[in-house]
Each structure stands twice: as structure tokens, then as C-alpha cells.
């Protein structure tokens, strides 16, 4: 089950809790993995060392890390007993991380060190002299004398290195949130690509407030009033009016879940649509008459979708295709829900061209 991050405003008087839903990986502390590191004592060798190491022992699972920290510490390889050493887990991880993180080589070329060390707590910034202090904070331990030999890869010209490799815990995966990034930076210099949607959902006071909140809850009540098995409604972002309300008809037709019908009803307001509206369903009159003049530019772009139940994979993807702005559901669905009950939830998958914002609305005592 996915974790939720609650910034629910207690002062909202309607009694509902509305939480932004992100995967558990967004609230977890940074996981670490042990790596072998050394220190560059002669900075003139940094560039060559990075290139050589990249060639001799690339670390695909740690592409989110810079090869060299500003304090001079340099990443040699994963510790021999670490998971992912010699490609066991690293293959899997690399396919995930490779898309968003430039390789250490690229980082070096961009000289992007400076932008990632602006955090005040990221440790001493200059000179290998100050690096000694940092070791204590990142809990590195001297390797056994026997292992020392193996710690540096064969064929590496070690000039410029201190030549005393140590073991050090480094972030195992790319940071997803600014909080994780700040934490990860304390361990090792790290790449970070903030997602505006994620940061917005995590910001203090984020959530649904004021008129939008009232409109969404009104739509949710309208959905429940149909007393259908499940129902979904599309709410106009400007005036909070109901664009369409659809009910579930899966018993008659396996595709006609509420969200699938809703997308079709919204298409009907734009002179499209395929299925016939059912008696319990609603379509905003003014829109359906004006046909195209007042309607939204494309599909459900920007619309807020309210649902009585967490959508399944088919419905969640239909809403993604329709480019709905947010999905706001009340009851979770542990059988086939994919926005809250699945881990990682659909809206966090890399590769999708549109990302739904997801909110879970519930009454704490289960009253409705």
C-alpha cells in the first residue's frame, strides 16, 4: 500500500481529510549502499582519474552520484559485499536511473559540482585537507589491509590518489524530493532533478482548499447521490461547475467503468463521444449546446476528476490519456486500484507523458 503524505489543513470545517498521494519512495529516508572511496590529493589528476575510473569500472547503479566530491573524495567502486556489486542488481537499477541522471562523465564535463553543493549542510567544500572531518560524519571505515589490494581496480594509474581506500556509505538511488536530496548530499555529491509536481504536493499547506475544495466535495456528493456501484465526475477548474457525471455500467459492458464513461461524456460536450448517456448521468448543458466554443481546448485537459473509488489500471490510464489535471477519489481499492493501492503507483511511473496529481479524500470516522 502506498504511503500518503498528509498536509491536511485541520481548519477545514467539512471534516474531510484530503491527502496528496505519492509513492512510499518519496517519504522514505535515503537508502545507502557501501562503496570504496579514496581521496584525490593532487587535483591536477582529477579529470584523468574520473575518465579512467569510468572506463575501468563504471558503476551503472550509482549514476546519480558524482564520481568526485568537492572535498576530493573519489568513488572507486561498490564494496565487494554490497548488493549490486559486479552487476547483480545494478542492471535493474541502471535502467531506471539512466534516463534521468547524466553519467558521472557528463557531470564532470558540465562542471556542475558548484550547483549541487550550495546546501549549507553538505559539508566542507574545499580542499582535501578538510575531507578528514567529513569521514566521521559519513561513517567510513578503513578497509582491511588484505582487501586494500583489491580496492583499487587493476590498471588504474593511482598517481594523485592518497592510496588509502576506505569504505563509505553512499546514496543507493537518486533522490526524488528536495528533502532526500539534502540528506543524500551529506553522504555524497549527488545529481537531483526536482519534479515540480512532486515538490508542489509536498509543499507545506499543499492540498485542496477553498472554493476548489468545496466544488470537488460537492461533486463527490453528487457522485454518491447516484447510488450507482461507482461514479465519476469532471469538474471545471475555473468555476467549479460539473462538466459531466458518469456512472459505472460494467455489468452491461466490460469497458464501461465510471471513468471510461466519464471521458466519453466529456468528449460528448466537445461534439464527440461514442456511448449513449445513461439516465443517471449528467452533461453540462451550456457546454453541450455551445459545442466547442466554451469547451476546454483538448479532451479533459485541466479538468479535475472526482471519483467515488480509486480507479483501476484501465481507468487511470484513460484519465492519463485524457490529460486530466487531478484525480480525487474517496474509497481505495486494494484489489485493482493503481493510484494508491499499487506500489509504485501509476502516476509516478517514469515514461508516461502526463502525470496525474492524485488526492485521497476520506472522512476520518468513516462517516459520509
Amino acid at each position, binding site marked *: 500500500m502506498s504511503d500518503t503524505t498528509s498536509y491536511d489543513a485541520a481548519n477545514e470545517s467539512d471534516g474531510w481529510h484530503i491527502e496528496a498521494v505519492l509513492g512510499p519512495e518519496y517519504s522514505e529516508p535515503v537508502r545507502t549502499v557501501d562503496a570504496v572511496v579514496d581521496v584525490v590529493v593532487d587535483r591536477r589528476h582529477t579529470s584523468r582519474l574520473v575518465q579512467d575510473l569510468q572506463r575501468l569500472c563504471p558503476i551503472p547503479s550509482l549514476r546519480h552520484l558524482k564520481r568526485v566530491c568537492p572535498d576530493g573524495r573519489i568513488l572507486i567502486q561498490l564494496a565487494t559485499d554490497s548488493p549490486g556489486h559486479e552487476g547483480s542488481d545494478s542492471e535493474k537499477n541502471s535502467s531506471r536511473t539512466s534516463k534521468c541522471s547524466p553519467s558521472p562523465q557528463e557531470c564532470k564535463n558540465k562542471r556542475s559540482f558548484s550547483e549541487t553543493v550550495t546546501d549549507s549542510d553538505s559539508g566542507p567544500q574545499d580542499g582535501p585537507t578538510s575531507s578528514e572531518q567529513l569521514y566521521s560524519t559519513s561513517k567510513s571505515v578503513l578497509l582491511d589491509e588484505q582487501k586494500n589490494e583489491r580496492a583499487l581496480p587493476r590498471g588504474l594509474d593511482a598517481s594523485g590518489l592518497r592510496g588509502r581506500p576506505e569504505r563509505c556509505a553512499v546514496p543507493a538511488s537518486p533522490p526524488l524530493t528536495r528533502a532526500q536530496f539534502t540528506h543524500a548530499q551529506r553522504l555524497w555529491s549527488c545529481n537531483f532533478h526536482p519534479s515540480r509536481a512532486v515538490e508542489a504536493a509536498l509543499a507545506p499547506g499543499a492540498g485542496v482548499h477553498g472554493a476548489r475544495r468545496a466544488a470537488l466535495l460537492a461533486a463527490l456528493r453528487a457522485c454518491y447521490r447516484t447510488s450507482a456501484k461507482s461514479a465519476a465526475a469532471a469538474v471545471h477548474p475555473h468555476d467549479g461547475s460539473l462538466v459531466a457525471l458518469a456512472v459505472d455500467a460494467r455489468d452491461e459492458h466490460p469497458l464501461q467503468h465510471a471513468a471510461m464513461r466519464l*471521458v466519453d461524456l466529456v*468528449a460528448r460536450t466537445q461534439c464527440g463521444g461514442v456511448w449513449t448517456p445513461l439516465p443517471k448521468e449528467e452533461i453540462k448543458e451550456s457546454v453541450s449546446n455551445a459545442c466547442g466554443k466554451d469547451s476546454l481546448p483538448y479532451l479533459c485537459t485541466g479538468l479535475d476528476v472526482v471519483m467515488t473509488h480509486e480507479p483501476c*489500471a484501465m*481507468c487511470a490510464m484513460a484519465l492519463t*490519456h*485524457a490529460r486530466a489535471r487531478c484525480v480525487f477519489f474517496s474509497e481505495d481499492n486494494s484489489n485493482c486500484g493503481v493510484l494508491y493501492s499499487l506500489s509504485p503507483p501509476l502516476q509516478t511511473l517514469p*515514461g508516461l507523458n502526463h502525470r496525474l496529481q492524485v488526492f485521497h479524500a476520506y472522512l476520518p470516522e468513516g462517516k459520509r
Partner: protein
Amino acid sequence: MDSKLEEWMEKAFELASKELELGEVPVGCVFVYDNKITAEGRNSVNETRNPTRHAEINCIDQVMEWCRETKRDWRSVFSKTRVYVTVEPCVMCAAALHNLKIEQIVYGCHNDRFGGCGTVMDVASLYENPVPTISGVQEKRAMKLLQQFYDGINPNAPQPKVKKRKRKEQETE
């Protein structure tokens, strides 16, 4: 192995090629039941202004209609239906096909944008008894059709911001 697999895929490719000429996304799909085609799908997203009207979804609607007309039980029909489609079904279509307990899915190239058979998400892993799936049938041909389409412009899609900037640059030049 399905002896007529290539033949049905050929049919799907014919449909996809026709789509390219009409300006819809070139995806072709046929549903085969009892060695006969019960539905021929094409994407009708732009026509219906409904982004869920993918070839597979249109085919399912056709089969439902056919079942109603011939008074057949749609559950048993779908469980003996094989689906041949030129492009990997998206997450939505894959979920729909798994829900229907289709007999088999056969597809051509991967769908990097929304593929639901492992590319963006492996929908099969959500099901206890997922539909057996064959991929990569005439992959290059399917990919080429898609490339031809995306080289052209979909007039109904919102303009990506990057393109706008490029256009401005071109104008100022």
C-alpha cells in the same frame, strides 16, 4: 504456435496503413474468434474527441455489438478470442484485455509512450492469470508506420512548448 498468426498480423498492418492515409495514429488491430475476424479496429481518437478510442477499445465495442446481435455470451466469446495488433497495447488497453481474459495477445513493436506490456508498465503482473502475449512480430514494419505518422503533425494535439520556442526562433531568423 498459431499457424495463421502472420496472416492475421498482415490484416492488422493493412488497417494501420489505411489509418496513416486518414491522419489517425497508424495502429491496426483485428480480433479473431473461431478462425474468423469478429472485429477490425482502428484508432478514432481525433474523430470522437475521446482519447480512449484506441483500436483495441473500438474492437471490443464491435465484439460486444456482435455478441448482442448474435445472442452470444460475451464472456465466453472473449475467452476464445485472439487479438492481433501492430503496436503494443497501452496500459489502458492491456488492462482491458486482461480484464476480458482474452485467449492471446500478439503485437508488433513496443510503445515507448504508454506500452502496458512491460514498456511503461507491466500490467500483466497485476493479474493472477494474465493473458499470454507474443511480441515483436514484424517489429520494424510497425515502427516505421509510427515514425511516418509522428513525422507529420497531429492537428488536434496541444502544441508542445518546445516547438513554440523553435518556431519563434525560426520566425526571428
